[in-house]
């Protein structure tokens, strides 16, 4: 693999990282609007407001950047990058299609993904602390507690798939996939997806940014481009979560005509899941903070442990 090829793949990942979240965001605008009987943005770009988020990006770049007087300047300014970059790195290793249609194969696969995604917590904590705002700090603590609580079921559910496939490499897992894995790993898929949703702080798990209680959590003091980067990291997170769920639980590129259209299957499944993320957001109200924590520890983790036991027993029985 020469340098040019690697460079191209990296740039491709960056482009995907910038485009796919915008697509998800625009879909959210429209889906949410229609689910509420509205039309959503209709003007930017001409056709049904397709360029709304591009226009938003242009606007954000021109916005003033306010750092509160009491804030810790450097940490405050660094936080959005810390929150954003892990998702970029993770996107590199998610396989899209068979035969090397992936940014880069990393042997540690899921383990790499989960470890790197865990760094994002630091961004929120830094943002919340450096803002010198009690609401921000409260939001940061909630974010951190939530991310840590839900990271665990994600790890356990991912481990269940790794057990089934006997590898932690993401293309290796998709290669080993059979259709009956879907029912076999159903509980794990539910746990993984739900925990991922909570980790992204999407409704109904958006207590850390509950606007009616703590304004916008850790991001209260952010303006302009830095705020936009936090939002971008949220939508990139949706893409990564849905891509990972597709790869781990839904068989990635497997489907009819997988030789030619494998990448399309991955994209279709990813966007179907992204639609579910948006759908859940529109449908359900926010969970209370204690319900949120209890749900992770008393529902998802026992379920994930049960899935681990099930996977282990069946795997040993069939081998």
């Amino acid at each position, binding site marked *: 693999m020469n340098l040019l090829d690697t460079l191209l793949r990296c740039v491709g990942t960056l482009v995907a990282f910038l485009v796919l979240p915008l697509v998800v965001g625009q879909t959210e605008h429209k*889906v949410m*609007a*229609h*689910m509420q*009987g*509205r*039309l959503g943005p*209709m003007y930017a770009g001409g056709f049904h407001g397709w360029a709304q988020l591009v226009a938003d990006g242009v606007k954000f770049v021109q916005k003033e950047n306010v750092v509160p007087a009491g804030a810790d300047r450097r940490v405050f300014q660094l936080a959005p990058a810390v929150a954003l970059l892990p998702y970029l790195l993770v996107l590199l290793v998610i396989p899209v299609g068979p035969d090397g249609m992936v940014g880069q194969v990393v042997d540690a696969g899921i383990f790499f993904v989960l470890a790197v995604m865990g760094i994002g917590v630091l961004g929120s904590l830094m943002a919340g602390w450096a803002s010198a705002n009690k609401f921000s700090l409260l939001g940061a603590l909630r974010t951190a507690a939530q991310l840590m609580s839900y990271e665990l079921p994600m790890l356990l559910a991912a481990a269940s798939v790794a057990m089934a496939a006997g590898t932690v490499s993401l293309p290796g897992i998709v290669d080993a996939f059979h259709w009956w894995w879907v029912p076999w790993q159903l509980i794990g898929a539910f746990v993984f997806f739900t925990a991922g949703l909570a980790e992204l702080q999407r409704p109904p798990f958006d207590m850390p940014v509950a606007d009616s209680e703590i304004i916008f959590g850790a991001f209260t003091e952010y303006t302009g481009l830095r705020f936009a980067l936090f939002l971008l990291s949220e939508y990139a997170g949706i893409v990564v979560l849905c891509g990972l769920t597709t790869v781990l639980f839904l068989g990635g590129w497997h489907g009819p005509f997988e030789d030619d259209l494998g990448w399309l299957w991955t994209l279709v499944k990813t966007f179907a899941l992204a639609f579910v993320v948006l*759908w859940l957001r529109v*449908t359900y109200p926010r969970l209370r903070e204690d319900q949120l924590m209890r749900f992770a520890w008393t529902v998802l983790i026992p379920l994930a442990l049960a899935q681990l036991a099930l996977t282990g027993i069946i795997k040993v029985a069939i081998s």
Partner: protein
Amino acid sequence: MGIPGSGLAKGLAVTMRTMMRKTVTAQYPDVQPDLPPRTRGVIALLEENCTVCMLCARECPDWCIYIDSHKETLPAADPNARARTRNVLDRFAIDFSLCMYCGICVEVCPFDALFWSPEFEYAETDIRELTHERERLREWMWTVPPPPAHDPAAEEPKEIAMARKAADKLAAAAAAAAAAAAEAATAEEGGES
């Protein structure tokens, strides 16, 4: 609520169904809204009807109607009579930054000088410019729609009902008189025969 999670599924179904339905959004600047009659857009003034009785200004809860007037003496038509005085309107202005669109002024006006106009696009860039003088209020008169037709099932207006009652009474009396006359005529004929 038998199966656990059925409530959650129901919620999902509701949002999905709404998404499939037609939206209710009106694309306002492109498509003008279809306003119902009696829309409270802005208050128009029919200056000719105003007698400067000041009822509207006094009843306004926000005190947003400003009226200036002076008295004018009309020369008496008849040399024996006293000269008549009449109020002449100098200024009639409504401050729409204060107005809360309660419509009390329209209700209390005894001479039908104030009307609701459906015109709602009268935004200004400065709040002080929202005090509109009588010329502007008069212009809005042209946008006042004709009063909507009465509901066919509604109760009859009092005046018509009274007139009808009187007419019915007259008609009944006339019919009774006619009947009496006819009876008398037949009795006469009978007496003759």
